[in-house]
């Protein structure tokens, strides 16, 4: 399972594909102050990234995988 939804936190692991974006968007609606854990995520399809950006999610854990880390930091610069 690439996405684990908790109370107010979403945990990503491995590769998050494009098909998860719709579910993620639905889950984020009506929630506030959601934080995301990317520690074990290696790649995320940008469809998910833009959903997270639009929902102004706070990043609790940055990914270890370098390319994703770099790209996410450029997009979520307020969370650093």
């Amino acid at each position, binding site marked *: 399972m690439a996405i684990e939804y908790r109370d107010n936190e979403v945990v990503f692991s491995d590769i998050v594909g494009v098909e998860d974006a719709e579910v993620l968007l639905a889950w984020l609606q009506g929630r506030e102050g959601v934080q995301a854990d990317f520690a074990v995520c290696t790649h995320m*399809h940008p469809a998910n990234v833009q959903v997270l950006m639009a929902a102004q999610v706070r990043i609790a854990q940055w990914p270890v995988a370098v390319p994703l880390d770099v790209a996410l930091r450029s997009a979520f610069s307020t969370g650093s």
Partner: protein
Amino acid sequence: MNELLAQFLSEARDALEGIGGKLMELENAPDDQELMTQLFRTVHTLKGNSGLFDFPEMSRVLHAGEDLMDAVRHGDVQYSQDLADRLLDAMDFVSALCDGIEKEAPVSPEMANEAVRQAKALRALIRTTAEPEVAALSDAPAAPASPALPLAQWLARVPEAIRMEAWEQAQHGSPLVWVHYVPSEECFYQGDDPLHQANQTPGWLWTGMAARAPWPALPEMDAYRCMLDFDVLAAAEQAEVATHYRYVPDQIQTMVVPPQWLLIPQGDPNGGPVYDDFVEDALGLLDSGDLAGLGRAVDTMLDLSSAALWLSSALRWMQRLLVMPAPDTQALRRLVESLQTLQVPAWSEPVVVTVAASSASAKSVQTGNVHAIALKNVIDVQREVLSLPDDAAWLPGRIKAAVASLSGCLRAFSRHGELEGLNTAAEQALANKSAVGLAQWLDAAFPDDAASEPSSSASATIASAAPAAEWVSVPATVAVSNTATEPELAIKEPLDADAPEADVKFGRRSEDATPKSLKVDQVKIDRLMNLIGEMVVAKNAMPYLANRAEAVFGVRELSREIKAQYATINRISEEMQDAIMQIRMMPVSFVFQRFPRLVRDISRRLGKQVNLELEGQDTAADKNIIESLGDPLVHIVRNSLDHGFEMPEVRQAAGKPVAGTLRIAARQEADRVVIEISDDGKGIDAHAVKVKAYQKGLIDEAAMDRLTDQEAVNLVFIPGFSTSDVVSDLSGRGVGMDVVRTAIEQVHGSIVLESVKGEGTRIRLSLPLSMAVTNVMTVESNQQMFGIPMDAVVETVRVPRSAVRTIKQRKATVLRGRVVPLRDLNTVLGLAAPPLTNDSDEYAVLVVRVGDAQLGLLVDDFHETADIILKPLSGVLAGLRAYSGSALMGDGTVLMVLNTKEML
């Protein structure tokens, strides 16, 4: 090459030919809806198929072609000759791509650029005819767009550590490239992952993502509409990067990053008087060239400062510079000086290179979060332009350009009210031939300090704030760029949308249901052909076996049974042979189909009007024969167009129809295919040909008088006759006609030319249906068997010894009133034995055709004819020109087949 690809290539070629043919037909019937739809479908299918493979260039061009055809089909664009030219050109390009794929050659960057150019040329046709105003709209914001590629600001988004890494790589000679990648909104639906694409860029160092527009509220958001722009910093050659992004060349802009531009100090600008002291010291050290001292000062200062300070960042860069073998003191000085102002040193303008010289400048306006700085850049440049001396001849142009840029800026920042003032100032400036008034207006409208103020605030926000906030601050620009891009999208969408896909799928399915033909590799057919050849030889051994059974072993019963069995096998093998021949048969349309295009192109280029009539396209012959016809026919047709037809005025003056008629007709006559190419042009001047041939020493004076006109025009086939000076002042023809004849004779064909001056020319080619099996007559000479191809045999006669005369030591005889030279086959082949006569003292004379002449060969005896598989001589034997090949006979002996052309 895998099978699927091979099949694709074969189908692609068929489709390309089909497209060419349909375009020709459309020229005659531009309103034919059915034809148009077929054409669209062919292009569409080809595009779809190309999408199965990794051929983005091909898909791109075909996609553009498909869009164009769709627009034509729906009446949005008028069919025109120009349109046909472009499409044909594009299809030629696709054909060239196919050639490349077949050779498994990688697509060169030139080809990729050409693909973009072709696609754009096709799309331009849709736009110019359908929406002429689009170009004007998208041009408007283009003026401020070019300085708005603020590489420096983009670079500021890259974390310092990565910039330092990039800088290191640059010092080791690696080129640095910045890629600004704006994926299409639909890209997720097409299975693209732009982030993955960006991260896979060769020499990847950094990827940045930024929102393209303010985020909508979550309930309104479409997760699958790409709203992100990507920026990539990579240490790679631009060409490499362009190859990586070859699927989306129109969505990227790349530019070379000068390494110095990476030197951007960032951080907390908290300053104090201690900076000034340091700056003073550092400049002093620089002046005295004491770099080691400067290094120590920098180290000390860095130790004392918090790492998060702007100062520390600048110091770290200085450290980097100082450890270089030859530190760049200029850069150091500028960094030191920047400590006073806390402004990033203004490294000079970047070299901007756009991979695809994209006209989609509207898109490039969306340059992210740097509009304030872009504005300042534009204003500064314009201020500088306007302050130039007014004495240049191009002053009005300069003023107009400045006004265009400035009005673009005003619109972009919603300052529409000030446009009028600008226009007034511009008019005055043009009237006075002085830019001073305009410069004054500029200073009033954009005070210097006000213009520079957003720059500092922007550089601060770039480092820290979210880009989304920046977008909100300049909604006007976003709106402008959206209106600019909308019309383009509006055209694209209906074309890209499902409608055409849907209605074509039905057609495709019904075609799939009933496959009527198989595509088989020629090698397989050739193998079958060879096998049946061997079988024929093996079969022919059976009568010998039957004879042996009877003569040697004395079993007549067995001999009879073998013969009966042989009859059956013979029948089956003959049918089999015939069936295989049928497989190899191809209609001449294979060759003919290229002529409509050829005739159209050449006649248009020459300014002549020629109607092409094709007849008997279904006439079939062996594949080898048909293929060998191609080049000679093209040659003949080209000659005819070039030299045969007169210009329209000349034709009219001669009382002929303005448009000439070129007729290419094919038909089967017995076991030969006859192809006639006739034109109603000016024909060949037989007398002029004779004179020319005489002057060239090709014929003597006697021959010149004796030759009939018909024989004279055939002189053009003599090698050496065909030189260009002959062509230019004669009635034409003759260019390489000897080459044509050689090519036709290679496949055992013949060529005859008839021409009447002023009325036209007719060329008649006669070719065998098949070359696979050769029918030969066997003759005996000096107890050896020889074969002579039946095509060459005229007759076999018995000539009494008394009827053979000797003329100038050459034997000859008279046959039906004609003198026929005789040659002794033994002598020709260097055999010592004299020819034998039969009991009535008659020679056996085999009369053969050699070119246009006849020759009698004296042999010992005639034998039966036989179907053989003629194999050319190979190795050392290939040099024996007296033989055209050898064949294996049923009894295992080898039959040498004579080459009659070498007999004279």
